[in-house]
């Protein structure tokens, strides 16, 4: 079995050959699906817990505190302890709640983000699904999360949950527009929606550098809109933990609540990973024109380290948003979207189309 940290395709190919040697093609397919599914579920749970821990630590350091530092070295097992606590809690269902939808909603939310995470390219040859419409697929699948949120609010039989869900849904739907349009900018540059092609097109430079100022504007707009779409940071008025009672998941307890919580953090990871893949070169190392030695040293760092390094930088920026800016009012939220982000985005796309038409990008 060949294993290289720089190229996973030979490794996955050798696993495939190993399996074809022992079973029929149908069973190979099913086994591979099961293996990939298991890996992603594990990855999802571990990364989600780690992100919750990371958020608490980052927020603590920003506020001159220490944060969780008791359970395990530097408090690394704190969120696992929290998860165990949530597992022991009673799963309470509100009287007259729509039981079926109430139970279904957390799964819809979590499946939507899990499906999107499956399509991301993590390293060379490390991508579960490589559609030719990959970016479109991710946008489509993440919007499914809204359905889960609305279901949760509707089935809870509580007016606070319903109002919270409506506000959440309205916010996500209106910012979806900006996310889609800012990603469209790079689709025009790369000329493809396939994520692996988009990453390959950045081998000689990331789009944020190659695309001049318009790409940078698209990147900033994507960051803002993605933060709003994940209901985080200064845009968490639907949830507003310090003023309201958590919006759509008010009536949820125990592990069902944890599902929403985990999905929220994984959506943040998804937004950061998407920004990395599309604007910051995915798993491509940083290359500068003709500096051969510099480029050689950068090539030495494995692609998976590049991917997660860049993703965590973007995650840090998104966390910094949350712990720096005051929360927006609903009218400010809509003004930002409809009066600033959307017009700038539209002009930006026309500009990019012109740039690509004239062949002015690198």
């Amino acid at each position, binding site marked *: 079995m060949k294993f290289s940290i720089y190229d996973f395709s030979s490794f996955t190919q050798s696993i495939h050959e190993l399996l074809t040697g022992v079973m029929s093609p149908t069973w190979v397919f099913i086994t591979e699906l099961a293996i990939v599914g298991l890996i992603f579920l594990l990855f999802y749970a571990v990364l989600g817990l780690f992100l919750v821990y990371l958020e608490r630590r980052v927020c603590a350091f*920003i*506020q*001159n505190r220490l944060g969780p530092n008791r359970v395990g070295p530097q408090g690394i097992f704190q969120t696992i302890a929290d998860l165990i606590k949530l597992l022991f809690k009673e799963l309470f269902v509100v009287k007259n709640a729509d039981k079926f939808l109430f139970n279904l909603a957390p799964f819809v939310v979590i499946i939507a983000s899990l499906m999107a995470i499956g399509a991301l390219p993590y390293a060379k040859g490390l991508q579960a699904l490589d559609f030719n419409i990959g970016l479109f697929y991710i946008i489509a699948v993440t919007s499914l999360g809204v359905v889960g949120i609305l279901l949760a609010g509707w089935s809870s039989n509580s007016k606070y949950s319903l109002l919270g869900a409506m506000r959440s849904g309205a916010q996500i739907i209106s910012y979806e527009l900006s996310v889609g349009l800012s990603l469209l900018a790079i689709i025009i540059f790369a000329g493809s929606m396939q994520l692996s092609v988009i990453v390959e097109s950045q081998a000689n430079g990331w789009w944020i550098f190659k695309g001049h100022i318009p790409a940078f504007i698209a990147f900033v707009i994507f960051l803002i809109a993605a933060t709003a779409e994940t209901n985080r940071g200064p845009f968490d008025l639907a949830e507003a933990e310090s003023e309201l009672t958590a919006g759509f998941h008010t009536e949820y307890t125990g592990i069902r609540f944890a599902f929403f919580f985990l999905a929220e953090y994984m959506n943040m990871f998804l937004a950061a990973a998407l920004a990395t893949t599309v604007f910051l070169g995915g798993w491509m190392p940083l290359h500068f024109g003709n500096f051969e030695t510099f480029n050689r040293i950068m090539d030495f760092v494995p692609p998976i380290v590049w991917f997660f390094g860049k993703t965590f930088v973007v995650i840090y920026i998104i966390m*910094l948003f949350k712990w720096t*800016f005051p929360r927006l009012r609903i009218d400010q939220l809509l003004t930002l979207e409809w009066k600033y982000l959307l017009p700038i985005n539209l002009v930006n796309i026309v500009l990019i189309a012109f740039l690509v038409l004239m062949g002015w990008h690198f």
Partner: protein
Amino acid sequence: MNAFFNYFSEIGHGIGTLLKGMRVTSGYFFRPREIITQKYPENRATLKMFDQFKGEVVMPHDKNNNHRCTGCGICENNCPNGSIQILTRKETTPEGKSVRVIDKHIYHLSMCTFCGLCVKTCPSDALAFGQTFEHAVFDRQKLTKVLNKPGSSLKKDVKE
């Protein structure tokens, strides 16, 4: 045309102020000046509480075992929870005057909300806040304290 420029200058101003805020917070993240969190059980020996901290009500005594409480009862009347009880007795001075002295200044820590009205209203500054905070006990009788030490007497310079 003016509105057009205003639109962009507003955006520029907004981004500028947002970046200023982000510079402050990431400054704290990368170069924390002073960590406020106290690692409590480990630093128990060196932990020093701040001046305004209201641990419990105490009655300071000087080195001759004298306190400043005249037993006027203002603190008892002012306490919203009734957590102070003052027992007084009459004593005759060598000059033949009859004066009131405290027998016991009883303080129920279990009922106290640390509002500070007793300390604030005491006319002779007899009460103060102590810095201790480890009040947990296994018997609630232990939360009823007598603030004046046994054998203590009123300081000479305190007037009624």
